[in-house]
């Protein structure tokens, strides 16, 4: 079917302001969701679930969290991994110390804990901006990892702060297979992504973007800067916290504080930059790019080298993989500095006219 909105007349503001105003988009999203929930579990292998799909969804959620803060509200943060760590350790402790607490409630509380910590480290944003704020959030990154290593109570006195996530049970059903974990993660991510999309197109989202685009004007219009920035920190950290809890409970199973290092924060930041700053879709595209491309290169380079008969060692292949990966990042940033989302939007705008561009 041709992608165009001709003939789709909006007769009310409600229709004009719905979440996906173009009919084809609604159909595509519906199909995608149906495929993700019903189609994928039918044929994907265990490896696909535990090594590709689950981490993709979790990283997309973390990237979405950072995107809310950096993309929508314009506050640069390098503490994403630390907020994920707060979420992971909070969920672990709630499970451990509160008798009979449902796991979803633990995840929710983990999110709120991360949100509280996020607000605390967001306080400097009221005075400082840009790179200087990034440095302030860097303090969060190091401080939180230090706290988690330093106080054994937080990891139930395990050596070097390693925690093993408890089993996931909801209403008597155990989520112990990769498929069931995938479906759990998918469900949470879909709900939170929709909530983020709703936030972005509501008054809250507009206030964030107003602060991002011109904070003085935003204030003069009547947007309280402190409240708006701290809300962005809270919501962003909530998303990162839930992502962190899922990272521990559904992906790795056991995590240590050093796993949530600056490296991870940077990785998530790159996902946001490459995917598209200030876009929900971009978080998913960016996570897919950063996460899936190395795996794809890994699985194609070796056979390709063998096919042309080049005597590459494994080490050489992995070097080439890094080079190709780096080159592709630069290529995409040069072609479209606004990220993959922008490419997607341009494609959509062209598709609307195709095949009759005049």
């Amino acid at each position, binding site marked *: 079917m041709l992608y165009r909105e001709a003939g789709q007349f909006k007769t009310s503001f409600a229709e004009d*302001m719905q979440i996906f105003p173009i009919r084809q988009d609604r159909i595509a999203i519906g199909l995608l969701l149906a495929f993700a929930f019903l189609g994928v579990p039918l044929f994907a292998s265990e490896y696909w679930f535990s090594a590709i799909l689950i981490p993709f969804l979790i990283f997309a959620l973390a990237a979405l969290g950072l995107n809310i803060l950096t993309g929508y509200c314009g506050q640069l943060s390098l503490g994403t991994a630390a907020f994920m760590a707060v979420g992971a350790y909070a969920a672990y402790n709630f499970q451990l110390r509160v008798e009979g607490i449902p796991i979803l409630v633990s995840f929710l509380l983990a999110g709120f804990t991360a949100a509280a910590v996020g607000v605390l480290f967001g306080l400097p944003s009221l005075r400082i901006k840009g790179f200087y704020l990034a440095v302030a959030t860097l303090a969060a990154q190091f401080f939180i990892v230090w706290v988690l290593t330093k106080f054994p109570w937080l990891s139930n006195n395990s050596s070097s702060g390693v925690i093993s996530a408890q089993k996931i049970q909801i209403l008597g059903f155990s989520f112990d297979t990769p498929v069931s974990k995938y479906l759990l993660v998918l469900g949470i991510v879909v709900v939170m992504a929709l909530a983020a999309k709703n936030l972005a197109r509501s*008054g*809250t989202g507009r206030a964030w*973007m107003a602060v991002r685009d*011109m904070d*003085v004007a935003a*204030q003069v*219009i*009547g947007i309280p800067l402190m409240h708006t920035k701290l809300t962005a920190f809270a919501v962003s950290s909530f998303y990162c916290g839930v992502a962190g809890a899922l990272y521990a409970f559904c992906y790795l199973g056991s995590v240590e504080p050093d796993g949530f290092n600056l490296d991870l924060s940077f990785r998530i930041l790159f996902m946001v930059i490459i995917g598209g700053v200030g876009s929900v879709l971009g978080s998913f595209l960016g996570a897919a790019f950063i996460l899936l491309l190395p795996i794809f290169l890994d699985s194609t380079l070796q056979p390709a080298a063998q096919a042309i008969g080049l005597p590459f060692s494994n080490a050489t292949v992995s070097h080439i993989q890094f080079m190709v990966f780096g080159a592709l990042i630069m290529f995409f940033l040069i072609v479209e500095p606004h990220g993959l989302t922008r490419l997607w939007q341009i494609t959509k705008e062209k598709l609307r006219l195709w095949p009759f561009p005049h």
Partner: protein
Amino acid sequence: MQMNQIGNAAVETAGRKIGEVILSLEHISLAFGGVKALTDISFDVREGEVRAIIGPNGAGKSSMLNVINGVYHPQQGRIVFHGRERRAMEPHKAARQGIARTFQNIALFKGMSVLDNLMTGRVTKMHHGLFAHMLGFGPGRREELAHRQKVEEVIDFLEIQHIRKTPVGRLPYGLQKRVELGRALAAEPSLLLLDEPMAGMNVEEKEDMCRFILDVNDQMGTTIVLIEHDMGVVMDISDRVVVLDYGKKIGDGVPAEVKANPHVIKAYLGAGH
């Protein structure tokens, strides 16, 4: 005169009249370190009038507006708005009291569409928070739709229907100025501050803007304080004029008085004329 709904304002408030003093500034002094931006300035603004502030570059006109809406906090003096006295105030609180403004250099939210910019202008009228917004249905959504209705009235008024979904960064200068006026109007202010609304426009755009300003004043009964350099425009549309020079008030009165004031002539044309 109370602020009315934009759509049927023409019927209700046809014929303008100038009422009580709604804003009075008394002995305002503002300094940045050793630089005196404003020195002992007093004037008032009456309800429903168009009050112009003129003066040469650096006279302190924009500082004056910034004092009125709380961006700058004067060291001395008092401000009485709608009977309430204040010395200093956060800008967002001034906005909640009904003061809206536009900026000399356009200060729109460049990444957002015209519609979103105008919707942002209504922030002081919206009451639902984060959790209502997250849902995508229910009270938060209904509020959003109700405000969309209001914003569309402003869009119709300013004749910018065709660009409502365009990101403002892509619009030409004249239209951006108009959108910025729209954003201020969306707040349904009782006092509208315009900082050089016609700067950098051609004659046609200036005429359009003058018409919009007069219509706002006329149909909605909004009190307007504006800064403008174009003397022809100022003398035509304003009821009373304040003249500043080097941070001091050198003239105040109806346009004809101000034009005849020797201090004003001196400031504008230099001594010897």
